[in-house]
């Protein structure tokens, strides 16, 4: 597939975007897409998403043990034993996925000597430009300037990513202490179980609220993306979308001539459908759990 029309003026890009909206499959397939997430990253997101949903649903009966729905939700997983088992299996899977990811990043950085992982335009590490972007975005909210020209990852995406790393490390460590208290007591004093349980619960409240409200809004539910952004499932964005949403990245790719190499076929219909199914499932379950929390808090 040949990338075409990269130098087209904005109004032409607009008209092409219009064709995206049309139901014709051919129109979509003719479109140029740019790779954003590789297969491993997409699968990592699916694994994190499913395990996080499962962990939330099996952990919430304990976190909100006084809520009217707590016993019912625990029973869905076969009571305290079943919910505990599912929670541990999902927890171990999530921990393994994140450990694999960290290992993969270290491998890419130190064995493959890949550049730009820890700093630069494509890095997940927060950098001064992210603070500037946040400041400009706030100004844009108030109508005091244009929206910042984002790069490969925006500041809120980096925050999400760092929160998952930090949260999984902390909750995973606390979870393992609670899972194996006798083993943990060989190195830790018993009162650390109290701290572990508290931190596990507090961090869970933070994570559940953050993912199912803030991440859902930023990534999927806000007016520009509603009802969901399928890029995390399909792995690619239309070039027009890239140019609009991440102008700096688009410019950099164009300038360095890397755009051609990043071009991929548009996602197939079946991939889009699978993405919509998984995305709808995730959004529905997540928002359902938020509704349960709001109900418990209102009680």
């Amino acid at each position, binding site marked *: 597939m040949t990338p075409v029309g990269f130098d087209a003026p904005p109004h032409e890009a607009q008209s092409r975007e219009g064709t995206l909206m049309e139901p014709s499959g051919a129109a979509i397939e003719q479109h140029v897409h740019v790779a954003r997430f590789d297969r491993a990253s997409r699968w990592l997101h699916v694994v994190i998403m499913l395990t996080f949903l499962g962990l939330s649903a099996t952990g919430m*009966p*304990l*976190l909100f*043990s*006084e809520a009217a729905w*707590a*016993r019912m939700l*625990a029973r869905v997983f076969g*009571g*305290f*034993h079943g919910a505990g088992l599912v929670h541990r299996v999902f927890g171990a899977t999530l921990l393994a996925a994140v450990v694999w990811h960290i290992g993969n990043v270290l491998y890419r950085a130190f064995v493959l000597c890949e550049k730009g992982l820890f700093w630069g335009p494509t890095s997940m590490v927060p950098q001064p430009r992210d603070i500037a972007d946040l400041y400009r975005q*706030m100004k*844009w*909210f*108030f*109508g005091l300037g244009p*929206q910042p020209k984002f790069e490969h990852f925006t500041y*809120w995406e980096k925050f999400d990513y760092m929160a998952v790393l930090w949260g999984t490390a902390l909750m995973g460590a606390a979870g393992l202490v*609670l899972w194996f*208290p*006798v083993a943990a*007591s*060989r190195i*830790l*004093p*018993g*009162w*650390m*179980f*109290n*701290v572990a*349980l*508290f*931190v596990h619960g*507090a*961090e869970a*409240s*933070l994570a559940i*609220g*953050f993912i199912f*409200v*803030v991440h859902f*809004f*930023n990534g999927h539910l*806000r*007016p*520009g993306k509603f009802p969901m952004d399928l890029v995390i499932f399909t792995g690619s964005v239309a070039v027009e979308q890239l140019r*609009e*949403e991440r102008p700096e990245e688009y410019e950099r790719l164009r300038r360095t001539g890397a755009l051609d190499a990043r071009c991929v076929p548009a996602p197939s219909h079946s991939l889009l459908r699978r993405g919509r199914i998984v995305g709808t499932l995730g959004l529905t379950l997540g928002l359902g759990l938020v509704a349960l929390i709001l109900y418990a808090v209102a009680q």
Partner: protein
Amino acid sequence: MWTRSVLCVAAACLFSTAAAAGQTAPKPPANEDCLVCHGEADAKRADGRTMAVDAKHFEASIHGPLGCVDCHAEAAKEVPHPDKLAKVACASCHDDVAGKYHDSMHAWAKEKAGLVGAPACADCHGTHDITPHTVKTSRVYRDRIPETCGSCHAGVREKYDTGIHAAALKKGASNAPVCVDCHTTHAITRTDTDAWRLSVTAECGTCHAKVVDSFRRTFHGKVTELGFTRVAACADCHGAHDILPAANPASMVSKARRVETCGRCHTGANERFVQYDPHPDPSNYSRSAVLWWANRFYWLLIPGCFGFFGLHSALWYWRSRKNGGRS
């Protein structure tokens, strides 16, 4: 003996004359008629068991205003009545209580398992001298409950007497728990049912409210709150009948015995393990500084995080709507 026989016959004559005069149903005998035979302190049945009724005790009892035949209905038909009368049916008046008793462990033992020694109403409440549980001399007065239950459950009573609750009761703390507070009075169930075990924790909380609150913050407390008894509740660590304060070395939760107590579930528990606080209080700095700081940290982090991103999302939504839904 001779006197009584004569009197009995006399009473019978009086009774039948009255019945004949009435021409209708025989007038039931008055208490005095019954006492003619039963009023003698040495009155015995054919098999030698006593059949004496102390009229003074009966009149002082809560049933004093009632007639003998209100309970011993069969005796109303003829005097003297046959040797064997039907058992008194307390349920004919106290049907609500009888229903509870009927579902209880005691009734099951007596009626289904054939344990003839298992108690029915009279074994705890007495017979002719029944007084309400508010009367100090009543068998079912709070302070006397351990003695009454202990007349069968002697081993448990022995344990109970060594515990802090019995000591408090003896010192006059009338709210100190006795048997019926946890086991209930009439609806006594098996102690291995989940429902009963969970109810005990709530019962402990009626006095030890703060302690149970702190327990509810723990994994043990949350799991039991969900209705599962696999994890420790009050009695699993503190004991049931012979609860002793932690300062007493014999207590299950004393420093000397904690490893053993925790180790009953957590095989391999050690000295470091038992530094766990089963009743944590994050607002108490001196109890655990680390927990206090963790609590402080999250009380800043969670509202801060949600506050900032909540505002961020709200502003973004507002801006997007103003821009016609773009970006």
